[in-house]
């Protein structure tokens, strides 16, 4: 078979590397308004700006100098610290005013959605005890038994994941996006920039992340307790050789523990081969707001409610991480409880700070 002719395409080549819809210059241009909460440079578990869902275009009709008004319903934003007047760390939060009209307009739709969600939850909570589920809960897992928890086939799957980067908080110039591919996977890509915003507050910059926000009805937390008896976290991904960071977030009830997370680097080897990266749960180290703690403890998955993948490897340039699924696998030969020293400090000792 010689020289098979291929039809000439009439259309122009579509650029696959389309520019991010979020204009970075715009983000830098709009002045921050009132009472910004002081943030540490690399607050990589900081949530995305309120109201910004994945791939949502930030309204470009906003005039210069104007601040986006925080929405009453529908926005997603984790509170940062209840000690400050600005609990959510969002500019203009404490000065917000909401009309009754707004409640009347948005309230019913929101309530309907949440009740539907609750209905689905209750119907899936069947009382019958499935044999396989019970085994999973009691720890009767076979070797190499795996569970692909988060896949990226449908738009609903993707809507659970929110992107965040330093430019969302007007602290840097990175960009990030999380888009589906035609292979049933999703790509977390963008550009990292360690250029510092010259506002006198920011010392270091350059981070981008995707975070899972899977909430039950009425914004109740869902825990990943079904992962409790598995030994390794498994991510099937295809990176670009850069070192990402996986974080398992376990913000509990107190505001002091809202920054609690367990992290470990996700090194990618790049190339066309898919990577089944297994990270034992015993290797995750305890971090608070991204900072490694002195006192280490192993992760308890009954408290973990979210997973995120962060890039902050201090390299400027574009990045891409294609994710096929995120799940868990059990390795019966893995008996390590924690990879780091754990100890109790003497009673009258302040070294734990």
């Amino acid at each position, binding site marked *: *078979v010689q*020289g098979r002719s291929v039809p000439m395409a009439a259309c122009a080549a579509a650029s*696959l590397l389309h520019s991010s819809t979020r204009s970075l210059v715009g983000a830098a241009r709009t002045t921050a308004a009132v009472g910004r909460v002081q943030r540490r440079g690399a607050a990589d578990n900081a949530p995305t700006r309120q109201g910004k869902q994945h791939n949502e275009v930030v309204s470009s009709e906003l005039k210069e100098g104007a601040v986006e008004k925080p929405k009453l319903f529908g926005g997603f934003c984790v509170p940062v610290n209840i000690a400050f007047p600005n609990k959510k760390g969002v500019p203009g939060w404490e000065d917000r005013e909401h009309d009754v009209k707004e409640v009347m307009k948005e309230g019913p739709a929101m309530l309907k959605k949440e009740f539907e969600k609750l209905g689905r939850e209750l119907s899936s909570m069947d009382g019958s005890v499935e044999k396989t589920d019970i085994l999973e809960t009691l720890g009767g897992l*076979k070797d190499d038994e795996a569970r692909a928890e988060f896949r990226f086939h449908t738009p609903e799957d993707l809507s659970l994941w929110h992107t965040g980067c330093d430019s969302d908080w007007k602290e840097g110039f990175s960009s990030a996006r999380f888009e589906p591919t035609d292979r049933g996977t999703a790509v977390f890509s963008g550009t990292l920039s360690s250029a510092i915003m010259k506002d006198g507050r920011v010392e270091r910059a350059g981070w981008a992340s995707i975070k899972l926000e899977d909430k039950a009805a009425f914004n109740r937390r869902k825990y990943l307790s079904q992962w409790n008896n598995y030994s390794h976290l498994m991510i*099937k991904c*295809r990176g670009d050789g850069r070192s990402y960071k996986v974080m398992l977030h376990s913000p509990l009830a107190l505001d002091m523990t809202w920054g609690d997370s367990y992290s470990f*680097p996700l090194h990618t080897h790049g*190339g066309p*081969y898919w990577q089944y990266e297994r990270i034992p749960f015993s290797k995750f180290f305890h971090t608070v707001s991204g900072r490694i703690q002195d006192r280490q403890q192993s992760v308890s998955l009954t408290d973990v409610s979210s997973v995120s993948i962060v890039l902050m490897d201090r390299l400027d340039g574009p990045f891409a991480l294609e994710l096929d699924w995120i799940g868990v696998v059990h390795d019966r030969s893995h008996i390590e409880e924690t990879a*780091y020293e754990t100890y109790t400090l003497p009673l009258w000792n302040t070294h734990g700070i």
Partner: protein
Amino acid sequence: ISIQLMKTVVSTFGAVYRSYCQPRTISTCRFVSAQSSRPEETRLAHIERQFDAVPKEERSREAFHAAIVLFKERRSRQHVEFIHSALKYIKEFGVHKELDTYKALLNIFPKGKMIPQNTFQRIMLHYPQQQNCCVKVLDEMEWHGVQPDKEIHDIVVNAFGEWNFATKKIKRMVYWMPKLKYSNKYIDRRQIEGKKLTAAELSGHALKMMARDPATTIDFVKLGDGPSSSSTDAHLEDDWIVSAQSVQQRRILAGLKEGTKITVDGPFRVYIMEHPIQYVKMTSPPLDKPFEEFEKHDMVGREDFSDWFSEWTRERSGRGRSVHEQRNETVLAMSVLSKNDNLSAEKWIRYLQKTSPSLEKMMVHIRIDKGDEMFDTEKKEDVNKEEVHAANTV
């Protein structure tokens, strides 16, 4: 002391001395100099002149250390301002990745003076400005990935005491950085960091990192047409290909049907430590059999041993899926081309044909001359047909 160091010390001294020769109203000693009598020298010097004064051509490691040595000899105050100004310039002087830089900076602090002597000093941050400055230096060191050692830990301990705020920072670094330094099992960073590698060597390391088959051989092929090339082809000196292919890939290639569509795609970007490399891959369509990642195990199925013998023989005799045969494509070879164009790709294919003669019978499409480099996650569209070649027409 080497002559080079002497020269830089003298030149730095000349540039910097001016800033020191100012009569100071508070200090008891006066710097004696013929230049201090001039009226414009009586103004207070800016502490940042130390590094800024060094002209750009002379900004080197020796100049940096010379400036620090001069400061230590002359000044007994204003350590913090000096160190802050030094931190701004370490990248320009090219010393940001060396441990000696940070040791020299922290050695500026006086030893013993700032160690807390009683409980109140221990509770309150004793010498807060200096401790914060020390933490900034260590932050900078951590940011650039410089690994600490015992000597720098001892420098900080001698300056601030064993259990102080700044010392805790260096203790944390000494504990955590070695723990995580070699967590990346895909590269041997001892071979890459701090070494001046050529583009070809770096490409070889990158291909080694990306190749998941341990039996991959990486070949360096020098192109260039030999003595017949004209004198204007001097740029061809840097024409090479680093090709990575394993035995299994060659076997897969040999087993492909005649006329199979083989695509040469690229350039894609991969990072090896901090260096971006552009590579090219040769793929064929995926196998017909479905890609099974998970085996379903029912409770009943787990315990079913009725077909145990046939299952066992099937496992033993059947060929499993190799790592190259992926869900959406089968990777046949990878390479890094010194010039990312269709011509170099054709040369690569001709090189591969030496070990895989069946490649001549395949329909090879080369799609490299597209301009934009991408990541392997983004699919190249089959749009610009002018660039699509068939190997057998070449």
